[in-house]
Protein backbone atom coordinates (compact mmCIF):
# COMPACT_ATOMS: atom_id res chain seq x y z
CA UNK A 1 0.00 0.00 0.00
CA UNK A 2 1.53 3.34 -1.06
CA UNK A 3 1.50 6.44 1.16
CA UNK A 4 -1.49 8.15 -0.50
CA UNK A 5 -3.57 4.96 -0.43
CA UNK A 6 -2.78 4.58 3.31
CA UNK A 7 -3.65 8.21 3.98
CA UNK A 8 -6.82 7.99 1.83
CA UNK A 9 -8.13 5.11 3.94
CA UNK A 10 -7.42 7.09 7.09
CA UNK A 11 -8.99 10.29 5.72
CA UNK A 12 -12.08 8.32 4.61
CA UNK A 13 -12.55 6.89 8.11
CA UNK A 14 -12.09 10.28 9.74
CA UNK A 15 -14.47 12.06 7.32
CA UNK A 16 -17.09 9.38 7.97
CA UNK A 17 -16.59 9.82 11.71
CA UNK A 18 -16.98 13.59 11.37
CA UNK A 19 -20.09 13.15 9.22
CA UNK A 20 -21.63 10.72 11.75
CA UNK A 21 -20.81 13.01 14.65
CA UNK A 22 -22.36 15.93 12.80
CA UNK A 23 -25.49 13.92 12.15
CA UNK A 24 -25.66 12.98 15.85
CA UNK A 25 -24.88 16.49 17.02
CA UNK A 26 -21.86 15.09 18.94
CA UNK A 27 -19.53 18.06 19.11
CA UNK A 28 -16.77 16.31 21.05
CA UNK A 29 -16.57 13.42 18.60
CA UNK A 30 -16.60 15.83 15.66
CA UNK A 31 -13.76 17.92 17.15
CA UNK A 32 -11.69 14.85 17.95
CA UNK A 33 -11.96 13.54 14.38
CA UNK A 34 -11.31 17.00 12.92
CA UNK A 35 -8.11 17.48 15.05
CA UNK A 36 -6.87 14.04 14.04
CA UNK A 37 -7.53 14.81 10.37
CA UNK A 38 -5.74 18.15 10.67
CA UNK A 39 -2.80 16.46 12.36
CA UNK A 40 -2.50 13.81 9.67
CA UNK A 41 -2.73 16.41 6.94
CA UNK A 42 -0.30 18.92 8.43
CA UNK A 43 1.56 21.20 6.09
CA UNK A 44 5.15 20.54 5.07
CA UNK A 45 6.07 23.74 6.97
CA UNK A 46 4.61 22.45 10.23
CA UNK A 47 6.33 19.13 9.88
CA UNK A 48 9.55 21.00 9.10
CA UNK A 49 9.20 23.11 12.24
CA UNK A 50 8.50 20.00 14.25
CA UNK A 51 11.60 18.32 12.86
CA UNK A 52 13.81 21.33 13.67
CA UNK A 53 12.35 21.53 17.18
CA UNK A 54 13.03 17.83 17.63
CA UNK A 55 16.60 18.24 16.46
CA UNK A 56 17.12 21.22 18.79
CA UNK A 57 15.71 19.23 21.69
CA UNK A 58 18.04 16.33 20.84
CA UNK A 59 21.00 18.72 20.67
CA UNK A 60 20.05 20.24 24.02
CA UNK A 61 19.58 16.76 25.51
CA UNK A 62 23.02 15.79 24.25
CA UNK A 63 24.45 19.06 25.56
CA UNK A 64 22.84 18.41 28.91
CA UNK A 65 24.37 14.95 29.08
CA UNK A 66 27.85 15.99 27.96
CA UNK A 67 28.13 19.53 29.29
CA UNK A 68 29.48 20.37 32.73
CA UNK A 69 27.28 23.47 32.81
CA UNK A 70 24.84 21.95 35.28
CA UNK A 71 27.65 20.77 37.53
CA UNK A 72 29.33 24.13 37.23
CA UNK A 73 26.18 26.05 38.07
CA UNK A 74 25.04 23.81 40.90
CA UNK A 75 28.28 22.96 42.64
CA UNK A 76 31.41 24.62 41.29
CA UNK A 77 30.20 28.24 41.18
CA UNK A 78 29.01 28.25 44.82
CA UNK A 79 32.32 26.52 45.72
CA UNK A 80 34.22 29.25 43.89
CA UNK A 81 32.31 31.89 45.81
CA UNK A 82 33.34 30.25 49.07
CA UNK A 83 36.93 29.93 47.89
CA UNK A 84 37.10 33.62 47.03
CA UNK A 85 35.53 34.50 50.38
CA UNK A 86 38.29 32.44 52.01
CA UNK A 87 40.93 34.37 50.02
CA UNK A 88 39.37 37.60 51.27
CA UNK A 89 39.57 36.27 54.84
CA UNK A 90 43.19 35.11 54.42
CA UNK A 91 44.34 38.44 53.01
CA UNK A 92 42.43 40.34 55.68
CA UNK A 93 43.98 38.27 58.48
CA UNK A 94 47.49 38.53 57.01
CA UNK A 95 47.19 42.31 56.58
CA UNK A 96 45.90 42.78 60.12
CA UNK A 97 48.59 40.51 61.58
CA UNK A 98 51.26 42.47 59.69
CA UNK A 99 49.78 45.74 60.93
CA UNK A 100 49.76 44.34 64.50
CA UNK A 101 53.45 43.50 64.27
CA UNK A 102 54.34 46.86 62.71
CA UNK A 103 52.37 48.72 65.38
CA UNK A 104 54.16 46.72 68.11
CA UNK A 105 57.58 47.42 66.56
CA UNK A 106 57.15 51.15 65.95
CA UNK A 107 57.12 52.26 69.63
CA UNK A 108 60.11 49.98 70.37
CA UNK A 109 62.13 51.62 67.58
CA UNK A 110 60.87 55.06 68.64
CA UNK A 111 61.91 54.46 72.29
CA UNK A 112 65.36 53.32 71.20
CA UNK A 113 65.81 56.33 68.94
CA UNK A 114 64.62 58.66 71.71
CA UNK A 115 67.05 57.18 74.26
CA UNK A 116 69.92 57.38 71.74
CA UNK A 117 69.15 61.04 71.07
CA UNK A 118 69.09 61.77 74.83
CA UNK A 119 72.49 60.14 75.31
CA UNK A 120 73.94 61.92 72.30
CA UNK A 121 72.85 65.27 73.71
CA UNK A 122 74.98 64.70 76.85
CA UNK A 123 78.76 65.14 76.76
CA UNK A 124 80.59 61.84 76.22
CA UNK A 125 82.30 61.93 79.57
CA UNK A 126 78.94 62.36 81.24
CA UNK A 127 77.94 58.77 80.56
CA UNK A 128 78.66 56.38 83.35
CA UNK A 129 79.68 52.87 82.34
CA UNK A 130 76.52 51.58 84.00
CA UNK A 131 74.38 53.92 81.85
CA UNK A 132 76.08 52.76 78.68
CA UNK A 133 75.80 49.09 79.63
CA UNK A 134 72.14 49.56 80.45
CA UNK A 135 71.55 51.26 77.08
CA UNK A 136 73.40 48.54 75.18
CA UNK A 137 71.40 45.85 76.97
CA UNK A 138 68.15 47.62 76.08
CA UNK A 139 69.31 48.04 72.48
CA UNK A 140 70.14 44.35 72.16
CA UNK A 141 66.86 43.14 73.63
CA UNK A 142 64.78 45.66 71.61
CA UNK A 143 66.59 44.71 68.41
CA UNK A 144 65.87 41.04 69.15
CA UNK A 145 62.21 41.77 69.79
CA UNK A 146 61.88 43.78 66.57
CA UNK A 147 63.78 41.08 64.69
CA UNK A 148 61.34 38.42 65.99
CA UNK A 149 58.41 40.50 64.73
CA UNK A 150 60.06 40.98 61.34
CA UNK A 151 60.44 37.18 61.11
CA UNK A 152 56.74 36.85 61.81
CA UNK A 153 55.90 39.48 59.16
CA UNK A 154 57.95 37.36 56.77
CA UNK A 155 56.00 34.20 57.63
CA UNK A 156 52.67 36.02 57.44
CA UNK A 157 53.30 36.59 53.72
CA UNK A 158 52.76 32.84 53.25
CA UNK A 159 49.09 33.69 52.64
CA UNK A 160 50.08 34.63 49.09
CA UNK A 161 50.93 31.02 48.24
CA UNK A 162 47.61 29.68 49.58
CA UNK A 163 45.47 32.44 48.10
CA UNK A 164 47.36 32.19 44.78
CA UNK A 165 46.54 28.49 44.51
CA UNK A 166 42.87 29.11 45.32
CA UNK A 167 42.61 31.93 42.78
CA UNK A 168 44.23 29.78 40.09
CA UNK A 169 41.57 27.12 40.76
CA UNK A 170 38.82 29.72 40.36
CA UNK A 171 40.42 30.96 37.12
CA UNK A 172 40.30 27.38 35.79
CA UNK A 173 36.61 27.21 36.69
CA UNK A 174 35.91 30.52 34.92
CA UNK A 175 37.58 29.10 31.80
CA UNK A 176 35.37 25.99 31.94
CA UNK A 177 32.29 28.10 32.50
CA UNK A 178 33.19 30.27 29.53
CA UNK A 179 33.57 27.19 27.32
CA UNK A 180 30.25 25.67 28.43
CA UNK A 181 28.37 28.95 27.93
CA UNK A 182 29.92 29.46 24.49
CA UNK A 183 28.72 25.94 23.53
CA UNK A 184 25.21 26.74 24.76
CA UNK A 185 25.15 30.01 22.84
CA UNK A 186 26.22 28.18 19.68
CA UNK A 187 23.52 25.50 20.02
CA UNK A 188 20.80 28.01 20.78
CA UNK A 189 21.94 30.47 18.12
CA UNK A 190 21.66 33.09 20.86
CA UNK A 191 24.56 35.29 19.85
CA UNK A 192 23.24 38.73 18.94
CA UNK A 193 24.69 40.60 15.97
CA UNK A 194 26.44 43.15 18.18
CA UNK A 195 27.63 40.70 20.83
CA UNK A 196 31.24 41.83 20.61
CA UNK A 197 30.53 45.45 21.44
CA UNK A 198 30.29 45.93 25.18
CA UNK A 199 28.66 49.06 26.49
CA UNK A 200 29.97 50.25 29.85
CA UNK A 201 27.99 52.91 31.65
CA UNK A 202 30.07 55.89 32.67
CA UNK A 203 28.53 55.49 36.14
CA UNK A 204 30.02 52.01 36.52
CA UNK A 205 32.81 52.00 39.08
CA UNK A 206 35.90 50.36 37.62
CA UNK A 207 37.71 49.50 40.85
CA UNK A 208 41.47 49.15 41.00
CA UNK A 209 43.36 49.39 37.73
CA UNK A 210 43.99 45.91 36.29
CA UNK A 211 46.24 45.95 33.22
CA UNK A 212 44.43 44.75 30.10
CA UNK A 213 40.88 44.70 31.47
CA UNK A 214 39.98 48.36 31.86
CA UNK A 215 37.08 49.48 29.69
CA UNK A 216 37.45 53.14 30.53
CA UNK A 217 40.94 54.57 30.20
CA UNK A 218 42.27 55.39 33.66
CA UNK A 219 44.58 58.29 34.31
CA UNK A 220 48.12 57.03 34.68
CA UNK A 221 49.22 58.18 38.12
CA UNK A 222 48.73 60.62 40.98
CA UNK A 223 50.63 63.27 39.01
CA UNK A 224 48.01 63.01 36.24
CA UNK A 225 45.18 63.30 38.78
CA UNK A 226 46.83 66.44 40.14
CA UNK A 227 47.22 67.87 36.63
CA UNK A 228 43.59 67.09 35.81
CA UNK A 229 42.31 68.71 39.03
CA UNK A 230 44.60 71.67 38.49
CA UNK A 231 43.12 72.07 35.01
CA UNK A 232 39.71 72.17 36.67
CA UNK A 233 40.86 75.03 38.86
CA UNK A 234 41.59 73.04 42.04
Amino acid sequence: MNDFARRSASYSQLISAMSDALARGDEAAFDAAAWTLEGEHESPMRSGVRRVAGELQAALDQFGKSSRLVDLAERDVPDARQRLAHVLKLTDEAAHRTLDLVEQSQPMADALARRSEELLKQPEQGHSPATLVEFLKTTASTANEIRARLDEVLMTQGYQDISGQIIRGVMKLVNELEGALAELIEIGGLRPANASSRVVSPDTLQGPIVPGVQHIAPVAAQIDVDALLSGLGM
Partner: protein
Amino acid sequence: MSSPHLGCLEGRLDARKDLNFLVVDDFSTMRRIVKNLLHDLGYANVTEADDGNTALPLLKAGNFDFLITDWNMPGMAGLDLLKHVRADERLKKLPVLMLTAEASREQIVAAAQAGVSGYVIKPFTAAVLKEKLEKILAAQPAKAG
Protein backbone atom coordinates in the same frame (compact mmCIF):
# COMPACT_ATOMS: atom_id res chain seq x y z
CA MET B 1 55.84 60.95 68.34
CA SER B 2 56.13 61.69 64.63
CA SER B 3 57.71 59.13 62.36
CA PRO B 4 61.18 60.12 61.19
CA HIS B 5 60.08 58.98 57.72
CA LEU B 6 57.11 61.27 57.48
CA GLY B 7 58.29 64.11 59.68
CA CYS B 8 55.94 66.58 61.26
CA LEU B 9 53.77 69.04 59.51
CA GLU B 10 55.51 72.14 60.62
CA GLY B 11 54.54 75.47 62.18
CA ARG B 12 50.95 76.35 61.50
CA LEU B 13 49.93 72.75 60.93
CA ASP B 14 51.44 71.65 64.23
CA ALA B 15 48.89 73.83 65.94
CA ARG B 16 46.13 71.67 64.44
CA LYS B 17 47.03 68.30 65.92
CA ASP B 18 43.75 68.29 67.78
CA LEU B 19 41.80 67.99 64.53
CA ASN B 20 39.15 65.27 64.44
CA PHE B 21 39.38 62.98 61.43
CA LEU B 22 36.79 60.55 60.10
CA VAL B 23 38.21 57.79 57.91
CA VAL B 24 35.67 55.92 55.77
CA ASP B 25 36.60 52.72 53.95
CA ASP B 26 34.90 49.33 53.70
CA PHE B 27 38.23 47.55 54.21
CA SER B 28 39.36 47.64 57.82
CA THR B 29 43.02 47.20 56.82
CA MET B 30 42.93 50.37 54.74
CA ARG B 31 41.27 52.29 57.61
CA ARG B 32 44.02 51.03 59.88
CA ILE B 33 46.77 52.05 57.44
CA VAL B 34 45.34 55.57 57.09
CA LYS B 35 44.87 55.81 60.86
CA ASN B 36 48.52 54.82 61.38
CA LEU B 37 49.71 57.38 58.87
CA LEU B 38 47.61 60.08 60.54
CA HIS B 39 49.08 59.08 63.92
CA ASP B 40 52.56 59.35 62.41
CA LEU B 41 51.66 62.87 61.31
CA GLY B 42 50.62 63.63 64.88
CA TYR B 43 46.85 63.34 64.54
CA ALA B 44 45.56 61.14 67.32
CA ASN B 45 41.82 61.83 66.98
CA VAL B 46 40.75 59.44 64.27
CA THR B 47 37.33 57.79 64.04
CA GLU B 48 36.46 55.05 61.54
CA ALA B 49 33.35 54.18 59.51
CA ASP B 50 32.86 51.45 56.92
CA ASP B 51 30.62 53.25 54.42
CA GLY B 52 28.62 56.42 53.79
CA ASN B 53 25.59 55.15 55.66
CA THR B 54 27.53 54.76 58.89
CA ALA B 55 29.68 57.84 58.27
CA LEU B 56 26.90 60.36 57.67
CA PRO B 57 25.21 60.08 61.10
CA LEU B 58 28.67 60.30 62.73
CA LEU B 59 29.43 63.43 60.74
CA LYS B 60 26.09 64.99 61.62
CA ALA B 61 26.39 64.11 65.31
CA GLY B 62 30.11 64.69 65.75
CA ASN B 63 32.50 67.55 65.49
CA PHE B 64 34.75 66.42 62.67
CA ASP B 65 37.30 68.65 61.01
CA PHE B 66 38.35 66.40 58.15
CA LEU B 67 36.83 63.55 56.15
CA ILE B 68 38.91 60.98 54.29
CA THR B 69 36.75 58.61 52.27
CA ASP B 70 37.01 55.75 49.82
CA TRP B 71 34.67 55.87 46.79
CA ASN B 72 33.68 52.28 46.00
CA MET B 73 31.88 50.93 49.09
CA PRO B 74 28.76 48.83 49.61
CA GLY B 75 25.87 50.83 51.02
CA MET B 76 26.52 54.49 50.42
CA ALA B 77 29.47 55.16 48.11
CA GLY B 78 32.00 57.91 48.74
CA LEU B 79 30.69 60.21 46.01
CA ASP B 80 27.18 60.11 47.49
CA LEU B 81 28.62 60.78 50.95
CA LEU B 82 30.46 63.78 49.51
CA LYS B 83 27.23 65.07 47.92
CA HIS B 84 25.38 64.66 51.24
CA VAL B 85 28.13 66.55 53.03
CA ARG B 86 28.09 69.41 50.54
CA ALA B 87 24.28 69.58 50.74
CA ASP B 88 24.31 69.85 54.54
CA GLU B 89 24.40 73.45 55.80
CA ARG B 90 26.59 72.59 58.80
CA LEU B 91 28.95 70.22 56.98
CA LYS B 92 29.22 71.82 53.57
CA LYS B 93 32.65 73.37 54.20
CA LEU B 94 34.18 70.19 55.67
CA PRO B 95 37.43 69.28 53.88
CA VAL B 96 36.93 65.96 52.06
CA LEU B 97 39.80 63.92 50.69
CA MET B 98 38.83 61.08 48.34
CA LEU B 99 41.21 58.12 48.72
CA THR B 100 40.23 55.60 46.06
CA ALA B 101 41.27 53.10 43.41
CA GLU B 102 38.82 54.73 40.98
CA ALA B 103 41.10 56.39 38.47
CA SER B 104 39.04 57.20 35.40
CA ARG B 105 39.07 60.74 34.15
CA GLU B 106 35.26 60.93 34.27
CA GLN B 107 35.18 59.90 37.92
CA ILE B 108 37.84 62.38 38.97
CA VAL B 109 35.92 65.13 37.17
CA ALA B 110 32.67 63.98 38.83
CA ALA B 111 34.31 64.11 42.27
CA ALA B 112 35.68 67.59 41.53
CA GLN B 113 32.25 68.77 40.40
CA ALA B 114 30.72 67.35 43.60
CA GLY B 115 33.15 69.50 45.59
CA VAL B 116 35.95 67.17 46.68
CA SER B 117 38.87 68.95 48.34
CA GLY B 118 41.55 66.48 47.23
CA TYR B 119 41.84 63.20 45.32
CA VAL B 120 44.42 60.48 45.94
CA ILE B 121 44.47 57.26 43.95
CA LYS B 122 45.33 53.91 45.53
CA PRO B 123 47.89 52.54 45.89
CA PHE B 124 49.31 55.68 47.45
CA THR B 125 52.38 56.63 49.44
CA ALA B 126 52.60 58.20 52.87
CA ALA B 127 54.29 61.20 51.26
CA VAL B 128 51.36 61.77 48.86
CA LEU B 129 48.82 61.55 51.68
CA LYS B 130 50.87 64.02 53.75
CA GLU B 131 51.22 66.41 50.82
CA LYS B 132 47.48 66.45 50.08
CA LEU B 133 46.52 66.85 53.73
CA GLU B 134 48.96 69.70 54.08
CA LYS B 135 47.62 71.42 50.98
CA ILE B 136 43.98 71.07 52.00
CA LEU B 137 44.60 72.16 55.60
CA ALA B 138 46.65 75.14 54.44
CA ALA B 139 43.60 76.36 52.55
CA GLN B 140 41.37 76.01 55.63
CA PRO B 141 40.73 78.66 58.26
CA ALA B 142 42.22 77.79 61.67
CA LYS B 143 40.06 75.67 63.99
CA ALA B 144 37.97 77.81 66.29
CA GLY B 145 39.13 77.83 69.91
